């Protein structure tokens, strides 16, 4: 008894070939990805329309927030506190931060998830200046950063924080930092993966040991040098 036409049951196993072929292409894709990605970034870098920014890995920033919602802060209600193991703790308004000497850096931004945005200008106050103004006490080892999203946190060692390419950034891409990019004030740690550059920065506390930040508690490296951490080999950014 054979209720099906023979070809329905006994034909060529094309389905299996398509299935295995798809798996094979996937594996091949993983092997060829570095080459393909470089080619793609080359195209995206020259794209005047910005359409490639909509494609995966096409370039441009991506919005990451770990909190449910983030309040808006502006020139009237924004405050940055500097405290912890310092002699002169204080809070800065946006205007006070703008009045301090500004440093401009233009470097690539590298996210730990793979995307990279070339030549991005950041402007702001050197973190080292704020630490010097506050007077770091003996025994201090590290900095803990907190954010007004209520959730995110970051850390740097004191040596890392004093680097000249670490800014409390007020401007990015030649304009005041907007809310989605972490404005009005965010951290900018040029030589490290971008998760170190905490958005919506509201607190700088000098501590006697490194307290790992939000993503670091979820497995990312604390010392997040671009190209030398998180198992990645990207070109260093600073």
């Amino acid at each position: 008894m054979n209720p099906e036409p023979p070809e329905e049951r006994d034909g060529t196993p094309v389905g299996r070939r398509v299935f295995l072929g798809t798996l094979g292409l996937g594996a091949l894709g993983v092997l060829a990805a570095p080459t393909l990605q470089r080619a793609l970034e080359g195209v995206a870098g020259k794209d005047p329309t910005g359409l490639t920014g909509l494609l995966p890995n096409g370039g441009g920033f991506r919005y990451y927030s770990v909190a449910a919602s983030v309040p808006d802060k502006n020139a009237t209600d924004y405050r940055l506190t500097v405290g912890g193991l310092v002699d002169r703790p204080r809070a800065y308004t946006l205007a006070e931060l703008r009045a301090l000497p500004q440093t401009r850096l233009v470097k690539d931004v590298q996210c730990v998830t793979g995307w990279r945005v070339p030549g991005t200008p950041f402007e702001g106050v050197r973190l080292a200046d704020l630490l010097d103004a506050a007077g770091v006490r003996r025994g201090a080892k590290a900095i803990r950063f907190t954010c007004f999203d209520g959730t995110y946190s970051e850390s740097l060692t004191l040596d890392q924080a004093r680097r000249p390419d670490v800014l409390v950034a007020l401007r990015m891409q030649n304009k005041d930092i907007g809310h989605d990019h972490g404005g009005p004030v965010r951290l900018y740690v040029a030589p490290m993966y971008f998760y170190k550059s905490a958005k919506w920065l509201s607190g700088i506390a000098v501590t006697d040991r490194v307290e790992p930040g939000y993503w670091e508690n979820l497995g990312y490296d604390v010392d997040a040098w671009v190209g030398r951490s998180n198992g990645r080999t990207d070109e260093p950014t600073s």
Partner: protein
Amino acid sequence: MSLRADTPAPPAARIRRFSRAERWVHRTTAALMGVCVATAAVLYIPQLAVLVGRRALVVRVHECAGLALPVPVLLGLASRAFRADLRFLNRFGPHDKVWLRAALRRDRRRQVRPAGKFNAGQKIYAAWIAGATLVMLGTGLLMWFTHLAPLVWRTSATFVHDWLALTIAVVLAGHIGMALGDPEAREGLRTGTVSQEWAKRQHPLWRTRQRP
């Protein structure tokens, strides 16, 4: 008793197309795929990411749904009807070539679209989406458990995962679009039965023996 008693459908007019087990496999797979697509959209599309936030939670939901995605099909293998349909999906006969050639010409005439229980397009879709799902699972695991493999693989896995996600979104939209265009095909998956006329029209070579 029933309101439909006035217009009774002759019992022979309905044909069993999918068993209960098969319908549940499809339903749960579709639901899990839906969760994967929705969470992926929140992770990829900046406007949605701004709206939802909660990145760690969305990632966790995405991971769990992705991990569970192949489970309904694997459980379905216990069903004889499901295994039989997998065999039909796998095997291509001469009529499938005719169907594919007509599809490439966009020729919609019924006589050039011969099909058994599944048409050639459905067969290729099933095989491709199964393979693509496993590629997504593999690259997803590489991105998730970064210490499983040489570490440069993570970037490559992300690249493949991103681009294949975009491809799956397009193909899935086609799959859903075609289902929206054929209410009776949807009824087949909802109730398990289809009308004799529909079966004859859409799947003329499908030899049915089971009746509900």
